[in-house]
């Protein structure tokens, strides 16, 4: 399978803190991938590394087989919308389309204008005066006008209201469905992306917790409910992701590698959200009792 984005033990450090560490993942072509993790998990860092804004401190990242940092040629294949959709606020949407044309070799201004017209974006108002949803749409239209093979969107819907979120994602899906563009979009809420993505990367505490196709992930995880579990081996279970116990009962979310046949356990299917939450809860929070001067 063609890999669009490959990271191999990728790491990025700010001072002495690692924003991203030992990150290894592969994103196959044609996928709509969700990059999910809480705030500060390293999502933006990963996207910035992928678009060449940042230079890795360890490991490597490859986009279409090329290392993106300092690679101007490779930039034309990547569309990127940064967090909070930064645009020159005093430019009108029409001027931004012109600017994009001056800044890119491959540029479909007609496509951008078509999209913006369809969405009812006024061409002659400064984009700083547009609503957040409209501004996000302008940023998306500009990214799509590059006709990228990979589209990276950093928290594209975080600042949008629910209606604008749905519209944004709908218009995104509509346009990439035809072109076969690979999309990687990040959010701290899976719920935002669950309906549109078919591939998932979960980041937490600067590390990759989970990565894979959504169907596979849902298929290989199960919830087991049964007698209190002491950590012994259960047939068909590859790993226990998360366990919660009462006095007599244990509830486990497990990754399976075969059917669980032990009759002591009740096996239930899980939703994608259950899986993600289980992996996110697994990440350890660094406590800061001493900094706060309070007892642990």
């Amino acid at each position: 399978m063609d890999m669009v984005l490959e990271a191999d033990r990728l790491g990025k450090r700010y001072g002495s803190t690692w924003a991203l560490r030992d990150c290894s993942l592969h994103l196959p072509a044609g996928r709509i991938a969700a990059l999910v993790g809480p705030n500060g998990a390293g999502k933006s860092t990963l996207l910035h590394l992928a678009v060449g804004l940042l230079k890795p401190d360890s490991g490597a990242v490859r986009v279409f087989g090329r290392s993106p940092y300092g690679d101007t040629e490779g930039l034309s294949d990547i569309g990127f919308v940064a967090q909070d959709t930064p645009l020159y606020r005093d430019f009108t949407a029409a001027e931004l389309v012109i600017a994009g044309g001056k800044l890119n070799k491959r540029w479909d201004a007609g496509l951008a204008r078509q999209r913006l017209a369809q969405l009812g974006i006024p061409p002659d108002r400064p984009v700083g005066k547009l609503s957040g949803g409209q501004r996000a749409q302008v940023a998306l239209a500009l990214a799509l006008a590059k006709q990228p093979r990979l589209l990276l969107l950093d928290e594209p819907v975080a600042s949008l209201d629910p209606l604008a979120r749905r519209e944004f994602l709908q218009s995104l899906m509509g346009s990439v469905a035809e072109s076969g563009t690979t999309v990687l979009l990040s959010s701290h809420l899976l719920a935002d992306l669950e309906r549109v993505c078919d591939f998932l990367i979960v980041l937490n505490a600067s590390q990759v917790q989970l990565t894979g196709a959504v169907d596979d992930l849902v298929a290989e995880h199960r919830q087991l409910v049964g007698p209190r579990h002491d950590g012994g081996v259960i047939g068909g279970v590859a790993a226990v992701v998360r366990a919660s116990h009462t006095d007599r009962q244990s509830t486990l979310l497990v990754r399976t590698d075969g059917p669980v046949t032990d009759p002591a356990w009740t096996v239930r299917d899980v939703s994608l959200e259950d899986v993600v939450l289980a992996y996110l809860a697994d990440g350890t929070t660094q406590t800061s009792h001493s900094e706060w001067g309070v007892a642990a």
Partner: protein
Amino acid sequence: MIWLTWRQHRKLALYTLLGFAVLAAVLVPIGLSMRHTFADLGLAECLRPSALSEAAAQTCDVGLRRFSDRYDSLNLVAVLLISLPVLVGLFWGAPLVAREVEQGTHRFVWTQGVGRTRWALVKFGLVGGAVVLLSVGYGLGMSWWVAPLTQAAHEGRLGVIVFDLQGIVPIGYTLFAVALGIFAGTVWKRMLPAMGITLAGFIGVRAAVEMLARPHYQPARTQTFPIEGNGIPEGDRGNWILAAGIRNPDGTMVAENARIQCPPGGKGPDGRACGAELGLQPGAYNWELYQPADRFWLFQGIETGIFVALAVLLLYLAVRRVRRIA
């Protein structure tokens, strides 16, 4: 890129030109009236290096005094005008990168098809070019405006404030201010801190060069003349006097920053020899350490070179830093 740079900065360019137009509207009438007075008082004749008759010298003295009485306050205006290059650095240089980063638009523009190195080179180049044009205009205008003031002043064009206003040094100062602003913006990445650092850095470097380096661009000359005699030697006008004083014949400094002029054979009120009450021995002389007036363009060239070199270094560092900002 050129279109983008123009589109981003056209408002600032308009305001800058407007500011200069207003400035010109104020200064040109003053300059014209200054020149009229200068001509009316016949001062051009006075300043020729030729011997003047006793009466003509008297008239000239009166004329020069009247001229300075009337226009001395303009030296304050000249001090204000010196600050123009740093204003260009603050408003053109500091926001160039800092504003992009502050508003996050660097992530938009640096991920388009032009690399950020090219972005930086084109942008710095265009802004630098515009700034050079601006400062050439400023330097020419100021040279014209300040000429009568300079000629009437004893120190001439090498004097501390007027030297900084005219000729080619404004080009160096302005380029340096803008480069410093750009560089500060790549390090602090916020507009206000970048502007603050630019202001402080500019004043610091300018003051250091002016006070520590400029007097030593060329070995200073000394001249001495007796305390009894007919005034200052010829050609003294326009020299930049770094230090002066009165020395005894053995070379010891008796009075710093002083000068005595007695008529030949003149005696003090108590009948003692000229300057005896200061402890001057017979044969004491006035002493001056100075840079001659004809070194003006050499000093202009050296000073401009220093600031242009600093600007180039800062721009190089700024381009390198731009590659590391995310």
